[in-house]
């Protein structure tokens, strides 16, 4: 009985870890899809415009975003070599990384919220290696959830 109990604990622990690793893998797949979509979009835009966008109108990855109300007073100190910054905000703000921006731009085909049309799903599946395809399907409710066999 004691051994069964230990095995039961071990089983629960492993199930927890597998669940956490599955969501980590799905996040990595989303990031791969979002980045490939972004590169494709920019390539098409530049081909249509026949020139790259003005350098001061684009932000290359990686970056992070800090957004706050326009009413917020921000006190900013910068070292001469720009290696150190100190910001004092008098009101709340939010920090997001670049992948969050790509998701909000729709570059992850809606997979991050589990809402993607069959066309989007087709695009997403075409952007990931075959071995990872089942994880893409698994993110859209209504399709067969990817049962970890």
């Amino acid at each position, binding site marked *: 009985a004691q051994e069964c109990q230990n095995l039961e604990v071990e089983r629960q622990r492993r199930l927890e870890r597998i669940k956490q690793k599955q969501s980590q893998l799905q*996040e*990595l797949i989303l*990031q791969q899809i979002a*980045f490939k979509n972004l590169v494709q979009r920019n390539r098409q835009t530049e081909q249509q415009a026949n020139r790259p966008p003005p350098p001061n109108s684009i932000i290359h*990855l*990686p970056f*992070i975003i800090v957004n706050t109300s326009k009413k917020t*007073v*921000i*006190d*900013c100190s910068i070292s001469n070599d720009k290696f150190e910054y100190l910001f*004092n905000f*008098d*009101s*709340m*703000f*939010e*920090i*997001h*990384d*670049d*992948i969050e921006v790509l998701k909000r731009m729709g570059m992850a085909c809606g997979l991050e919220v589990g809402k993607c049309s069959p066309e989007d799903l087709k695009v997403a599946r075409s952007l990931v290696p075959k071995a990872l395809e089942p994880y893409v399907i698994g993110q859209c409710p209504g399709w067969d959830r990817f049962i970890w066999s």
Partner: protein
Amino acid sequence: RSRMLVSIGESFGLSNRFQKINQMVNSSERSFKRTLDLGSAPKPLKRL
């Protein structure tokens, strides 16, 4: 007072790195507002 450290400057990888920071700022905003209501108005900082 709480403080959080995170490494930036890398490309993708971890997700929701800033979730805890945003929660900390968000939650203490409410308590900060409460103390403001009670205490004196903070000295205005230099405008950016």
